[in-house]
């Protein structure tokens, strides 16, 4: 039964038939989507198991610490495939993002053996890695006896993969030769424009191409859309998370940095240059004129929901935030569009700073080899394809998924401009911060300074000079400056 169909799926898994051919063939054979899916998963599992002993840890169990997120939902939905493939059991705890990282810090700092692997961001590994809480995954990735030959480590987007690797030296380049692979990228976010096409058409404005245009467009939208709609949503809470999305993406586009790294490895503040001050002044003006009224309390959540609810006309934030707001029960679902954004008119392309949801292995895991089996499956191509085509596992970190035509067409159909935005921005997408252990201290203070500037408590020039002075003092105290 289904022998022909099995042959077709096998040919696809060997790369002899593309996804379009596979779907056509399965459709012609009269298979329902459900049956085809079951058959496909079965064959994928068989193919995965062909050259590698996935059953080596059968009967063992791993425990995960997960953040409540569509990426985690996609993994949980596909967990049966992992259990069938390996014979391993997986348990997990899921926490909302508000408390998630506190939970991770508490678990790791107490050397808890409860969790084997967990979701993290690359920035967090700058704390976890040097503290000795997480494992350098190179040991497993480079071990042919422990890693599936089909794993495809080279398939990961280079900038994203490198952003998860650091040598632990303050100021050390991400992805350097001597870097440790603190985490495996899972899904990532670039920061670009997501906008309400209907509102843009109503007011008669085009998509802004640079920071100056962003200011004028956002101001016009605030003035003309009506109904209390404001022009642009960006984050503003007193947190590092305010600095990393649109703000740093635009800032980096002007060639500006957070810190200078001297030849002898000493760090110093770099945000009080004239160019940086000019950028800050425009950003502050944009929020004052066209941002949300209670901007200083805005996290990613408020930025996203305002766009989805039609309270804002555009956001300069994570592309996946714009993606999620274009579906589900959101009032503006189907009305949103996407555009790459280069803040600097002289820049040839955007330079989005990125956030990477990644997977790390706890150094206190009771069975690291078993944990690695889970990590390589969860970050493997098959799960990425499953998540990207059947769930909301955007944006995948594997180049082959971005080349997948079914995935691209699905996005193009419902998310106009999303794929083009990704492709134009991806070459310049990376972490633009300097890797160092005071990341959260310095960026939180940066956000607080930005709040003071927007509230007109301090002029931009003076605020940045004071910020630089404070940062230099903190770096010196920590022995980094």
């Amino acid at each position: 039964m289904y022998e022909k169909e099995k042959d077709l799926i096998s040919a696809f898994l060997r790369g002899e038939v593309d996804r379009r051919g596979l779907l056509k063939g399965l459709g012609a054979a009269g298979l329902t989507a459900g049956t085809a899916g079951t058959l496909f998963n079965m064959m994928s599992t068989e193919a995965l198991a062909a050259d590698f002993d996935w059953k080596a840890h059968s009967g063992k169990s791993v425990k995960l610490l997960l953040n409540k997120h569509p990426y985690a939902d996609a993994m949980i939905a596909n967990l049966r495939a992992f259990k069938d493939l390996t014979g391993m059991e997986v348990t997990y705890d899921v926490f909302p993002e508000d408390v998630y990282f506190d939970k991770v810090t508490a678990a790791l700092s107490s050397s808890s053996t409860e969790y084997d692997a967990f979701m993290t961001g690359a920035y967090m590994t700058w704390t976890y890695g040097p503290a000795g809480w997480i494992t350098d995954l190179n040991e497993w990735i480079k071990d042919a006896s422990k890693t599936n030959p089909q794993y495809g480590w080279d398939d990961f987007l280079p900038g994203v993969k490198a952003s998860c690797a650091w040598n632990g030296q303050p100021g050390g380049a991400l992805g350097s030769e001597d870097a440790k692979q603190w985490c495996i990228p899972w899904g990532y976010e670039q920061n670009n424009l997501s906008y309400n096409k209907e509102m843009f058409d109503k007011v008669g404005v085009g998509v802004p191409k640079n920071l100056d245009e962003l200011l004028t467009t956002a101001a016009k939208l605030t003035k003309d859309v009506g109904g209390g709609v404001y022009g642009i949503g960006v984050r503003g809470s007193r947190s590092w998370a305010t600095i990393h999305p649109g703000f740093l993406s635009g800032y980096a586009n002007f060639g500006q940095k957070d810190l200078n790294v001297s030849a002898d490895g000493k760090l110093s503040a770099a945000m009080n240059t004239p160019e940086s001050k000019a950028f800050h002044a425009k950003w502050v003006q944009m929020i004052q004129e066209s941002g949300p009224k209670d901007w200083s309390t805005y996290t990613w959540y408020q930025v996203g929901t305002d766009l989805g609810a039609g309270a804002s006309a555009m956001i300069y934030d994570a592309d996946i935030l714009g993606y999620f707001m274009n579906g589900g029960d959101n009032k503006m679902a189907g009305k949103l569009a996407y555009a790459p954004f280069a803040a600097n008119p002289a820049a040839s392309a955007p330079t989005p700073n990125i956030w990477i949801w990644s997977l790390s292995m706890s150094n206190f895991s009771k069975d690291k080899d078993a944990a690695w089996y889970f990590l390589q499956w969860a970050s493997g191509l098959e799960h990425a394809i499953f998540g990207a085509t059947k769930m909301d596992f955007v944006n995948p970190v594997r180049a082959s998924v971005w080349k997948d035509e079914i995935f691209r067409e699905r996005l193009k159909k419902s998310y106009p401009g999303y794929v083009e935005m990704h492709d134009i921005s991806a070459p310049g997408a990376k972490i633009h911060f300097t890797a160092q252990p005071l990341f959260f201290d310095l960026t939180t203070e940066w956000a607080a300074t930005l709040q003071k500037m927007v509230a007109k408590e301090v002029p931009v020039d003076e605020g940045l000079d004071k910020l630089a002075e404070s940062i230099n003092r903190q770096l010196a105290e920590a022995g980094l400056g």
Partner: protein
Amino acid sequence: MASVTQPGARTRGFRISKRVLPYVLSLPALLVCIGILIPFFSAVVYSFQRYRLSQPWARQFNWGENYLNFFTDPGFWNTLRVSLLYAGTTVILELLLGLGIALLLQRRSTVNNFISIMLLLPLMTAPALAALMWKLMTNPGFGILSYFASLIGLENFRWASSPDTALLTVVLVDIWVYTPFIMILLLAGLRSLPTQPFEAAALDGVPRTFVFFRITLPMLTPYILTATLFRLLDSIQQFDIIYAMTQGGPGDTLTVFQVEAYLNFFQSTNVGRSAALLIILWAITYALSNVFIKNWLRLRERARGEA
């Protein structure tokens, strides 16, 4: 042959001498005390260390350096100022409101009892949830309080998102949550006061204000002091309302001790600095408690005619 058992021989092994008994009886209290003191002294030790979780190799005793750094850090003085201002404002306002409501509900009646129970509802709400609720009510776009503010001409009132009004907003939430606590304590105090002085004053036709300031208030002072002490200790350590609403912002407007210590520990993993901040906070609360308890004892002695 039947054996003969000496009276008391079976229990001799378990008998505890009268000299040892008090120590055995106080052992549980001692264990609880140790359980409290171990974390406290650990924090004291950490506060004298350069101890950042992300730099474990740099961990060493720096003795008073964490404390000395605070004296030259304007951020610390701002934290101290904001914490004291927040605690002072909330306690004074809650005391006035709580006393006012307690006086209104003083007379025992079904309606008054029902109202006093209803007024306790905010106290049953978790402060973090209350903060989120107020965050929605003060949203400039759709919040009901923003709507009311606009009716009295306050268009675009920014509540917790403006440095000018952030303190006022979180103080309002604190008042909403904790005024019932003061009210219920003072109501219990008012209802337990002896009736004779009031009856005598009524017979003599003494004006109400005089009765209040010369009879009610002095007799109620121990209750007021107790309520104030409890609220002051709580208020100076406020975290959830402020963090849930503003994360300490805008700027450094609301970076009170607990928020600073939390960010230092969980976000910056700077254990030494976080512990030093909390030890300073402990010292302040200890000093304040001493002042209040000494006054409370003096009043009690005076009431007994001992002073």
